Structure formats: C-alpha cells, structure tokens
C-alpha cells in the first residue's frame, strides 16, 4: 500500500491556494488573526523600543529609529522578492492569484522602501552630517524605489488585465536581475558609510553589532512589520481577485 501518495504535502495544500475560491476562503479566515497579530507585535515592538530602551553611547536616542528603519528595509526587499516569485509563477503556471498577489504587494513594498529611505535620511543627518549620502545601501534602496514605481506604473498603463500581468511579470524578473547587479555596482562605486550586518545573533563581543537590550524589541518590530505586510498582502490580493471577477461580470453585461 502506498500511503505517501494519498496524504497531501504542504506544497500540495499550498498550490490549492491558486484556486481563487480556495484562496478567498482561506485568506478570509486567516485575515483577522494575521491582522491582530500584526497589531500586537507592531505595537509592542514600537512601544517597547520607543519608551523602554536606553540610548546608545554613540548615537544617542536616534538609535530608536532602528525599530522603524530596519524592519521597513527588510520588508522593502521582501516585497520585491514576493513580486519576483509571483511573476515567475504567473509566467509558468498562469495562475491569477499569484500575479494578483504580486500586484498587491507592490504598493506596500514601495511604501516600505520610502519609510526606509526617509528614516535612513533622518537618522543619517545627525550621524553623518548630511541627509543624503551616496552610500551603497541607501542608493540601492533608491533604485529599488524606482523599480517599484515603474512596476506599478506599467500595471496602470496597460488596459488588458492579462497583458498587463504578462508584461509587468517580465519587467519584475528583469528588474530583479538588475537589482542584484545594481547592488554590486553601487558597492563597487562607493564603499559606503553604512555599517556591516547590524542584526546578527553574535554576542556583544563585536562592537558594531547591537546588544540584546535593543535586539528584542527589534525582533518584535520586525515581526510586526512582517505580519502587517502579510495583512496588507492578503487584503490587497483579495481586492484584486474580487476586482477581476467584477470586470468579468461587467464585460459579460456589456455583451448581453
């Protein structure tokens, strides 16, 4: 008897989400929980970070900006990764839910990039003496922001939904390759003022890495941002799925 072929694996269940009905059902049930968890982690992380952490020796109270800057930056990159995967799945399997998820992820990713840029610049001013430096990481984020804008603009510019999905997916994939290229180009071009990896699990032996006192609220904040991203992703994708159905019905009505 071959039991292994009967029990659905995680991936089998995951791909069932490609069916819009299944997706709407699952996301509708999950959404309140994800949203609540997002609120919980975000509030606790930011409140802890803002009110209950000490100042840094070198950076003073500006270190508190880390609770916004780092999670936002992570989500900015995460957003583009999601778009890349969604685009790939669409081009290969032509499942609408994935490309609509990519479409929904883009504005959120863009806002996260903006937050990362703004908090980075504000943080940079007292630390480096200037609002903007052509530092590798900041510059890469600026380019990332432009990629997001281009992707969203292309979606908006094309009338036919499926054509738009196809073209934006091609753009997202080429863009991802170039984003990685840009990262290395910018590193080459300017060794930069940004410190190395801030968030490592290393002990306090390395001076540049942050200590536990800052790390725990940061983890909460990162979880909060991540869950918020997921919440908005679910809301946005559900909206897009409904919007698509709406257009289908409207088209049908026009033909009758």
């Amino acid at each position, binding site marked *: 008897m071959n039991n292994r072929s009967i029990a659905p694996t995680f991936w089998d269940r995951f791909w069932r989400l490609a069916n819009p009905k299944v997706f709407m059902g699952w996301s509708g049930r999950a959404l309140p929980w994800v949203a609540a968890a997002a609120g919980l982690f975000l509030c606790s992380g930011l409140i802890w970070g803002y009110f209950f952490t000490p100042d840094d020796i070198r950076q003073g109270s500006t270190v508190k900006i880390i609770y916004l800057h780092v999670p936002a930056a992570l989500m900015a990159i995460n957003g583009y990764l999601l778009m890349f995967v969604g685009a790939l799945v669409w081009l290969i399997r032509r499942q609408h839910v994935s490309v609509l998820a990519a479409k929904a992820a883009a504005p959120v990713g863009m806002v996260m990039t903006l937050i990362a840029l703004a908090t980075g610049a504000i943080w940079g001013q007292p630390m480096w003496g200037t609002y903007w430096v052509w530092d590798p990481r900041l510059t890469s984020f600026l380019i990332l922001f432009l*990629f997001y804008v281009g992707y969203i603009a292309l979606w908006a510019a094309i009338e036919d939904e499926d054509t738009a999905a196809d073209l934006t997916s091609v753009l997202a994939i080429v863009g991802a390759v170039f984003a990685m290229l*840009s990262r290395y180009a910018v590193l080459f071009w300017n060794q930069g003022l940004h410190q190395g990896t801030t968030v490592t699990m290393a002990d306090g032996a390395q001076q540049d890495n942050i200590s536990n006192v800052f790390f725990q609220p940061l983890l909460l904040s990162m979880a909060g941002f991540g869950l918020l991203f997921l919440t908005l992703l679910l809301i946005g994708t559900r909206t897009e799925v409904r919007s698509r159905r709406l257009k289908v019905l409207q088209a049908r009505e026009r033909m009758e």
Partner: protein
Amino acid sequence: MIQLFLRDVGLSVRSGGGFGLALIFFLIVVTLIPFALGPDQTALAVIAPGVLWLGALLACLLSLDRIFGLDFEDGTLDLLATSPLPPEAVYIAKAAAHWLTTGLPLALAAPVLGVLLNLDFEIGKILCLSLLLGTPALSLIGAFGASLTLGVKRGGLLLSLLVLPLYVPSLIFGAQAVRLAGQGLAYDGALVLLSAISLGAAAILPFASGAALRINLR
C-alpha cells in the same frame, strides 16, 4: 535579420530619421552644463566624465521609442510577427541598428565634446572606450523597455521611468572608469564590469524582449 538591421539603419539615416538628433541633443546638454554650473575649468574637468556619460545616456533614451514605435504604428511590426523571423531576432536587429545609429556616434563624439568641458584628450580616449563598451547595454536595455511599452499610448515617459533604473549599473561603471583614469588609478576592473553588463544584457534580454513582443502583438 541582417536585412531588418540594414533597413532600420537606412531608415534612421535618411532625413527625418532622427540620426543626427541624438548627437545634437548631446551637444546641447554638454553646452548647457557650464551655463548651469559655472565656467571654472578645473571644476568642469572633474565633472566631465559623469556629465558626458549622462549626456550620452539621455541622448540614447530619447530615441528609444523609435525602435519599435514607427513599425508598430504602421503595422509593419505585425507583419514581422507573422514572418518566420522570431521576435528575439527582430529585437536584436533593432537594438543593433539603434546602437549603430545612436550609441556608436555618441561614443565617438564624446571626446570631442569633452573639449568643451576641459577634459584631457587622453582621458577622452578612455571615455570613448567606456562608451563603446557601455552603449550596447544602453541600446539593449532601451529596446527591452520599448518592447514592454509598445502598446502604451504616449508611453515615452513610462519608458524612461522603466529604463533609467536599469541604466544605473552601466552609468556607474562607465563614469567611474573614466574618473579612475583621470586620477591615474586602475580602471580596467570597471571596464570589465561594464562589458559584462553589455554581454549579460545581450544574453538575457533577447528572450525577455521576445516574450514582451509576443505578448504585445497577440
């Protein structure tokens, strides 16, 4: 494919084909810079590599919608789509024609215009080399962007928005190579990376553009 390439080159060189426009634009930009930034010779020499690269890049950008636009409007592109020539080949032919009529002339003109910015002629030769290595990438990436925005009305601005972030690595390496040369440092690393981008673009973008053309010509 060769015929398509020759035809596009011929079309561009004829009057109304836009051949000289990119060069004129390049000249105008370079003359505007000293007006904007002041005529201090040493300052101009310092910024010259970047300005010239940027000017060439912008001049390239301007002619991008011609790559597919004209043929799309009069239906030639649809004819090409039904021909045995695969869209990837159409893309390569057109990108090559663009480079020959835009990128190459800009690269050759740059050291001459560099004189206006007090750029040492020896450095100007490196500039020319960097543009020769980098402008293929600009044509390839630009043609890719054009293939995406084919059906978009007044898509010029959108085209620029899509293409400019993709131009950044080439611009960085290209201008940096010339700057390093100006400072007497080793610049071959930058040139190698610049060429790598052009080669990489030539390897990947035909497939991406072919896909985009197929999508748009459905």
